[in-house]
């Protein structure tokens, strides 16, 4: 586990995940208090990534449960492995015969077999789905419940039970209690408001687009060999783009793709032609691309005047 908030920043940094103090504090608290974290924020700011990186940096197994509409307990929790049960009964036919040997009546036979039925409804024949796997794991795990807002309210209520007590009751076996409490990360894109009850049980973390400084760090980390000047310009331009009224704002992952494209094309600075041609890696909607193009023009014009002003400044310096 993490020793301090700075320790979180450092160790996530080792996994190439740059986070600010906010994120680190919440992560630290979640580990120390053993509470689930509900991470909200726009798409593509690294919510899911946070879960993965946490697992890596703590050296724990990552168990991921992707939520969708119609996800039910059978797919999230456990199922009986009927095929296996059947197979075993077939194979063990003789053994069953032995047990039944000498029984006088049908009733006696049933009683005898009933004594043994634990064998067939034991954990051996339980097919654990992500939630159960996280609970019964021998070591502590990181349970990533992704896009929990996509699930139905019924599933949410069920999740609530699991998250508050970390135990599950299986009718045939009894209650299974978590051997080690998993570290739970829930992510949500806010397509619907989660219930208060669920939120009450979680710590809340809102991940937003990074500040330019941090974004520059991220780009440099993830795209090695990228030009200093280019990174600066990209980060600055993205700040401007995200302020526009877009259908989908460019996320970090898209930014990284874009920068990769630009470096492949051997760009040292943003220039008109190539940028326009590559904008489609950054924007996914026609209307957005158009808006971005306009903003780009404005940006380049601004840069020109600024450069010009700077040039005039330096000329003056020379004169003096």
């Amino acid at each position, binding site marked *: 586990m993490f020793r301090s*908030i700075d320790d979180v920043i450092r160790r996530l940094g080792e996994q190439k995940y740059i986070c600010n103090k906010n994120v680190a*504090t919440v992560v630290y608290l979640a580990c*120390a*208090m053993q509470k689930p974290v509900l991470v909200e924020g726009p798409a593509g700011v690294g919510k899911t990534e946070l879960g993965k990186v946490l697992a890596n940096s703590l050296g724990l197994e990552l168990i991921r449960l992707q939520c969708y509409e119609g996800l039910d307990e059978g797919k999230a929790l456990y199922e009986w492995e009927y095929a296996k049960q059947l197979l075993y009964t077939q194979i063990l036919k003789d053994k069953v015969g032995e047990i039944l040997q000498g029984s006088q009546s049908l009733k006696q036979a049933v009683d005898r077999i009933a004594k043994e039925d634990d064998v067939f409804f034991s954990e051996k024949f339980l097919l654990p789905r992500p939630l159960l796997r996280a609970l019964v794991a021998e070591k502590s795990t990181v349970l990533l419940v992704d896009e929990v807002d996509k699930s139905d309210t019924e599933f949410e209520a069920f999740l609530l039970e699991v998250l508050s007590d970390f135990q599950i009751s299986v009718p045939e076996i009894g209650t299974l209690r978590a051997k080690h409490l998993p570290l739970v990360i829930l992510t949500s894109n806010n397509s*619907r*408001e989660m219930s208060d009850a669920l939120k009450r049980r979680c710590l809340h973390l809102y991940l937003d687009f990074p500040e330019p400084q941090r974004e520059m760090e991220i780009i440099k980390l993830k795209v090695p060999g990228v030009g200093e000047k280019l990174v600066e310009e990209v980060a600055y331009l993205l700040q401007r783009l995200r302020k526009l009224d877009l259908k989908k704002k460019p996320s970090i992952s898209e930014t990284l793709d874009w920068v990769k494209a630009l470096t492949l094309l051997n760009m040292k600075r943003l220039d008109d032609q190539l940028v326009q041609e590559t904008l489609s890696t950054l924007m996914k909607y026609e209307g957005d691309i158009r808006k971005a193009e306009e903003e780009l023009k404005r940006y380049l014009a601004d840069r020109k005047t600024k450069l010009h002003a700077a040039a005039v400044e330096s000329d003056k310096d020379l004169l003096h």
Partner: protein
Amino acid sequence: MNDQIVEFSNLLRRNGIRVSPSENMEALRALELVGVGDPHGFRTALRATLVKRFADMRLFEELFELFFLGFGKAVAESDRRLMAQLGLNPKEFQEWLEQVRSLLEHRKDHLSPIARALLAGDMGQVERLLREAAATEDGEAVERRVSVGVYSHRVAVAIQIDRVEQETADFLAWAESRGAAPEILERLARYLDERLKALSQLLRELAEQELRKSSQTPPGRERLEYLMQKSFSYYTAEDIRRMNEVVTQLARRFKNLLSLRRKKADRGRFDVKDTLRKNLQYGGVPFEIQLDRRKREKPQVIVLCDISDSVLNASRFMLQFVYSLQELYSKVRSFVFVSEVGEVTQLFEENEIQTAVEMALKGEVIDVYCHSNFGRAFDMFYREHFSAVTSKTTFLVIGDGRNNYNSPNDWVLKEIQQKAKQLIWLNPESRLTWGFGDSEMARYVPHCDFVEECRNIEQLYKVIDRIAA
């Protein structure tokens, strides 16, 4: 510390952020872990444990500053101004403060505690003294919602501000009598003057904070029940703000009703895969037939809501309801009209509930400053959006049917009824007045599957059962 956190959560609650006792305990636990020494961690710990909705985030930041940072900002501001006025840099200013303090030491018998703290620049002490004075004064003044001016005046009297002023003047006179250099004296005069100004500013700040802290009272249970039966047209601004909670409940009920019915349904297509799987436990003999019920019929709702002045409160409420519906379902399309029709689906998707509803009502989409004209609106809807109506659509019209004697165009409703699954009309007017004056209800009713008077939330509850059916 504990008391302070509890008090802070109370402040959050009063401002409409839900904080449960368990969250309160968690905040305390989190603080133990983070420690109170780290201001950033302190804030983050509180935010993560107490605030769970993005929409409340900004309010939290505001209240946090109000509650924990207190006068911090105002004090820094006043110091900066002082430095500028005296023409000193921070280091020189510190030296100057030292000088003043040593002078004050000589006169400490002639100064009240607050004057001494103020002149020495010990603003923390000043704040404590002010808060003490406010605490004794407090209570009923806040209850009666006095203005900032009145409140700050009261506290000023409590700390005897005239005495502070007198003592300050005496202090200056005394310094003069000691034969200080003229330029020092002048600087001292300006310094003292600025300090007094800062004091009155702090008083104001204090008043604003205290009044802000008690600005709202928590909504009680009775209050909600009372709201349920109150007619929309008598809603006050306060009621409207509180409606949020009711509306969410309502929408949830709507959704629950639907899923309840889904479970009871036992018809559907035979599902081969599921049946095989399920019957593995019987050795592959199909005992239990599985039916494919996955394709749940999502209600496709189209709402056409009158937002003219005559039904303003009702439509505000209805829009909130529609907003919540939209959050729960993907297939809701919302339109508003007075005379022309405008779609607000996207507006609702992109904005927070209160803003969205206000935007819709304030004419962001359509012109709201005209007379209502149902006929024209229907006609326009028919021409532009009729294709959105399908056989699965529940079509919901909300309005009083007062058409200002325009052409009613009731044929549109007939078309809609024929195509849609059902057509429901909710009228926020009392049934007794339907058909009188310019009300065209008599013409519209025959084309609707279901018409209901809907003047308060209780009636709306009943309607919802019907819509979900």
